[in-house]
């Protein structure tokens, strides 16, 4: 079980900022995205504009294998605009 955080546009599309999801312990980042989009289909429109941050490290959507621990934090990060 991981905590998923949503920000900015991803929070708008998902309709929430934070939730707990059950996902396989080993999963590619793309598969993780697809799991999340099943629950929040509106997120599909930003597929090309997001990255994950897993335990505060950036992860691109792709074949990278993630090894997740219970309680890990996964954030859906749209393009950044601070500063």
């Amino acid at each position, binding site marked *: 079980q991981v905590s998923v*955080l949503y*920000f*900015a*546009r991803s929070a708008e599309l998902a309709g929430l900022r934070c939730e707990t999801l059950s996902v396989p312990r080993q999963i590619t980042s793309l598969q993780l995205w697809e799991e999340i989009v099943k629950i929040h289909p509106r997120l599909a429109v930003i597929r*090309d*504009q*997001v*990255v994950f*941050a897993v335990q*505060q490290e*950036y992860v*691109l959507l792709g074949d990278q294998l993630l090894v997740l621990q219970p309680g890990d934090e996964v*954030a859906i*990060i*749209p*393009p*950044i*605009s*601070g*500063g």
Partner: protein
Amino acid sequence: MDESEDVPKDFIKLKSEKLSIDEVSELVISPCCGAVSLFIGTTRNNFEGKKVIHLEYEAYMSMAETEIKKICRDVRQKWPSVKHIAVHHRLGNCLFKNVCIGSVCWSPHLACRILDAGVMTLTIFPILCLYLQEIYEGEYSWKENKECFWTNSEK
């Protein structure tokens, strides 16, 4: 003399209250240093011909702080004589003319330091986990930095 003042420190704050340039400057004062570089970012009242009413900032707080600390570390590697660094960024609602971001590096040498604060802030833009909405009259838009490394730049 207080020896702990000589240990370089990073002061990072993301907060919803009005930022104080005095406070940011005072954080980095150190008796052994003779110069301060200060960068101030403020809200503009227009973007591409549209009138901007205000900005709304939100942040992935823990990660933003982690990333700023990494930048501070990189700054110190590049310019070892930098002493204290303070980065304050406003969250929530910013009316125009309000300060949104200030960063200060206080170092022994004046030359080139004025450039450093600007360089550091530009480095922050693509990395910082902050989001901003420009609120126009009747509509809004989430802004995207050009330097954001994961967006498809050929849109």
